[in-house]
């Protein structure tokens, strides 16, 4: 049907030409939209500029000071030197092993730090807190230093828990090599009891979590592995050791679940309990996500989907990651941290992934529950909406109330490989990443790194929770803008001041200790728990704090984040609240204990009722 419009001499209706011109303008505006969005995003990121300490303290309520050297901590992680066949891409493979975990090893009331290194012959360090602001490495004296040997592999991380309920926390050192369990002999030394674990002689573990899954009062242990157990990275018969896929790999190591028999020995029941996946596990954390009274388990996997295991209460776990929504899209899971970010008395979950502009933008996940107590878990990712999605090549993360305002803030470490140059390896990485498994899986096919970086020199991130549904990047303002290749971060009140200090372990870099100065306008309370019917470390205990209509939730962790473990004490910031209604402790045994109106600005020691 012919157009009824009047046409111009050129043949096109004038109205249509006008609309065409208008469309062109709109088109140009749309092309400019990404630039505008970027500008607006950077404007809202204005808090991420360096400030003087006093200004940052006034503006954000806290500021960090890096004090490792004056504190006497001069620890540097060294990577493993693996089989020469991997030499062209050695930094990509030898990219793990910087870990930090917190323990009060001798029960003197001061929190100590255990840091791992990964070079053959390198010594792990146990920095005993002397209580005067300084630390002393006592790992050699106590027998925890010399664990990185050619015959037994190297450390990747460590988690502490009182597995024998003698009051002193023991340590499990997970390795690419022989896993080690050391029993704490009343703070005076450690005895190696690794043979009682029931684990294979050699595994390539990247994470471990203490938790009492069967609520029998004895701590059990989950161990997550990266490479299969038959891979000895120092003696490779071939170079086919890389994952079969970057998003769907299932040829990693199997994971283990060690049930504590209560007699000092463990029974490996992983497969029988339902842990049958062989993905490339990097991190794990436990929490009672369905609020049925027993701890469930989240497993973060590189090169694929994550796993969420519901504790069925009968010694078995049921994997529900896909159904719950946390495992529908494969990413590069590298962290698992639980926290009650909205103060609703339920666990949100932060999982870090890779975000490299223009190359690979997984985005980190902040999964918030959408289910009611006791219902089948479901989650929604709100990382983008809250502003904690894009960090970098992200590894360890922790929730903690850094300014004591009553809301959990977030610290995320970043950076994979900072090479000799800042030239990027990403192009070469993308070559093989898109290829078939026969190409990817063989390290011999990978282009040589040649000193280049892969998401190197990235700053860590500190996001401040404003309590109104947004997190604000304050990294530079509060003094946390280091560009080492961050791996683990742990929160701990190192100087017993009622504030959370941060300790960051960097791959091929120093252990950084950030002493926190927090505003005095905000109150706090800390709780040190000791189980009696429950495991003595009280790992898995949930603490609900109630004050003037608000509630907060913490738990005692047996390892979380990435290659990290926070202090066992629960720390709450209280904002301007000066009086509490109550604190309710739900012990792993099921016992519920209520402390009415506990005093604020002090540490409380709470013992489980017999």
């Amino acid at each position, binding site marked *: 049907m012919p157009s009824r419009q009047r046409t111009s001499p050129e043949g096109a209706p004038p109205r249509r030409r006008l609309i065409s011109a208008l469309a062109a303008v709109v088109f140009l505006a749309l092309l400019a939209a990404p630039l505008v969005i*970027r500008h607006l995003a950077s404007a809202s990121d204005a808090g991420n500029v360096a400030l003087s300490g006093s200004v940052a303290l006034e503006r954000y309520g806290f500021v960090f000071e890096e004090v490792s050297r004056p504190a006497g901590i001069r620890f540097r992680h060294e990577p493993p030197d693996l089989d020469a066949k991997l030499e062209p891409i050695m930094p990509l493979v030898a990219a793990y092993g910087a870990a930090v975990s917190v323990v009060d090893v001798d029960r003197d009331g001061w929190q100590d730090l255990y840091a791992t290194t990964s070079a053959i012959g390198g010594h792990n360090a146990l920095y005993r807190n002397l209580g005067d602001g300084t630390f002393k490495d006592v790992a050699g004296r106590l027998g925890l230093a010399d664990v990185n040997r050619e015959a037994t592999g190297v450390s990747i991380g460590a988690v502490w828990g009182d597995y024998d309920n003698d009051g002193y926390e023991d340590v499990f050192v997970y390795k690419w090599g022989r896993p080690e369990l050391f029993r704490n002999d009343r703070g005076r030394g450690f005895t190696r009891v690794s043979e009682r674990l029931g684990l294979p002689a050699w595994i390539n573990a990247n994470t471990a979590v203490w938790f009492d899954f069967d609520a029998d009062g004895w701590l059990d242990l989950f161990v997550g592995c990266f490479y299969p157990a038959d891979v000895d990275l120092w003696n490779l018969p071939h170079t086919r050791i890389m994952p079969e896929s970057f998003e769907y790999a299932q040829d990693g190591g199997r994971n283990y679940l060690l049930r504590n028999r209560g007699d000092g020995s463990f029974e490996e029941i992983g497969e029988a309990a339902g842990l049958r996946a062989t993905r490339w596990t990097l991190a794990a954390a436990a929490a009672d996500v369905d609020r049925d009274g027993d701890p469930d388990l989240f497993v973060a996997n590189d090169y694929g989907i994550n796993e969420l295991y519901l504790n069925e209460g009968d010694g078995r776990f049921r994997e529900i990651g896909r159904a719950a929504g946390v495992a529908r899209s494969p990413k590069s899971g590298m962290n698992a941290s639980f926290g009650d970010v909205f103060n609703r008395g339920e666990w949100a979950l932060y999982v870090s992934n890779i975000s490299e502009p223009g190359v690979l933008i997984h985005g980190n996940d902040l999964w918030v529950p959408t289910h009611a107590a006791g219902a089948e878990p479901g989650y929604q990712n709100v990382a983008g909406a809250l502003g904690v999605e*894009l960090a970098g090549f992200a590894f360890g993360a922790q929730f903690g109330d850094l300014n004591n305002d009553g809301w959990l803030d977030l610290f995320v470490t970043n950076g994979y490989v900072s090479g000799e140059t800042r030239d990027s390896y990403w192009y070469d990485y993308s070559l093989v990443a898109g290829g078939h498994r026969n190409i990817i899986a063989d390290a011999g096919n990978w282009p040589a790194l040649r000193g280049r970086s892969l998401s190197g020199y990235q700053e860590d991130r500190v996001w401040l929770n404003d309590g109104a549904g947004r997190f604000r990047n304050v990294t530079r303002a509060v003094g946390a803008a280091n560009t080492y290749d961050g791996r683990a971060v742990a929160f701990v009140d190192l100087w017993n001041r009622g504030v959370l200090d941060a300790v960051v372990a960097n791959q091929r870099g120093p252990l950084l200790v950030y002493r926190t100065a927090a505003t005095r306008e905000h109150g706090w309370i800390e709780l040190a728990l000791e189980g009696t019917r429950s495991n003595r470390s009280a790992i898995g205990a949930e603490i609900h704090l109630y004050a003037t209509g608000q509630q907060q939730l913490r738990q005692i962790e047996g390892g979380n984040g990435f290659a990290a473990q926070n202090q066992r004490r629960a720390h709450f910031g209280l904002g301007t609240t000066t009086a509490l209604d109550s604190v309710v402790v739900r012990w792993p045994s099921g016992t519920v204990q209520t402390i009415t109106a506990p005093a604020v600005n002090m540490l409380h020691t709470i013992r489980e009722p017999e």
Partner: protein
Amino acid sequence: MTFDRRLAAPLLITLILIGAHWSFGMLRGYEAIALAIVSTVVTEFVLRRVLTGQPPQLASAYISGISITILVRSPLLWPYALGGVISVMSKYVLRTRRGHLWNPSNFGICALLFLAPYAVAPLSVQWGNNLWPMLVIWAVGLFTIWRARRAHITIAYVLSFFLFALVRSLITGSSYAAEVAPITGPMYQLFALFMITDPKTTVSSTWGAVAVAILVALVETLFRLAEVIYAPFYALFLVGPSALLAEIWWTSVAKRRHPEAPAAAALVGNGGTAAEPLR
């Protein structure tokens, strides 16, 4: 009742989309799929009506939406909407009298990658690890474009890619397997089967189209030597319209010289291939 062959590609790509997401969860999510498709379809509907008064090419817009969904990866939602709208708008804004110049999906994806790298990345991973899905997609895809008489373009491109991969390997020192690796992934399957075969991105004659495909592979190699990750998209972005403009110029010159000769094959704007390409 006969099967409308123009529906072959939309159906095939839809099946790939559903299969890929159901099996591997490889897409951003259903909301991204819906957003991209709604964006392209609505834009097509409005612009086609307003600017030409003709019925909208909804199948084409639908394919553009799916293409954006498959080939773009972003944790954010807005790139899917913006990419969809830009893709379709490019058809109506960037055109000659004989039709548009860019493959809409290629334009939209390049615009996003160039202007919003902080939010967008290209599809760069596999569809699972098995050989069979890859072979099935190649087989069905090749059959589809063979029926559409466009297989020569894909074959020329793939052979050129393998040849230039060897050249790159010799120049860079990387293994040949690494240089060949990208073409074993899904991004290249979609690119080689459905994007470069778009009549809008190449010339009309068979050998001319073969030459353009080889030229795309050559320019891609130059981008790759410069370590540009989006090399195939950018190569097609440059070569496709250039080839079309060259053909238009050449045709007009020939027509001026030989006004009595029949017009060159009216490829531009014909859209009349048996299978719709990625748009």
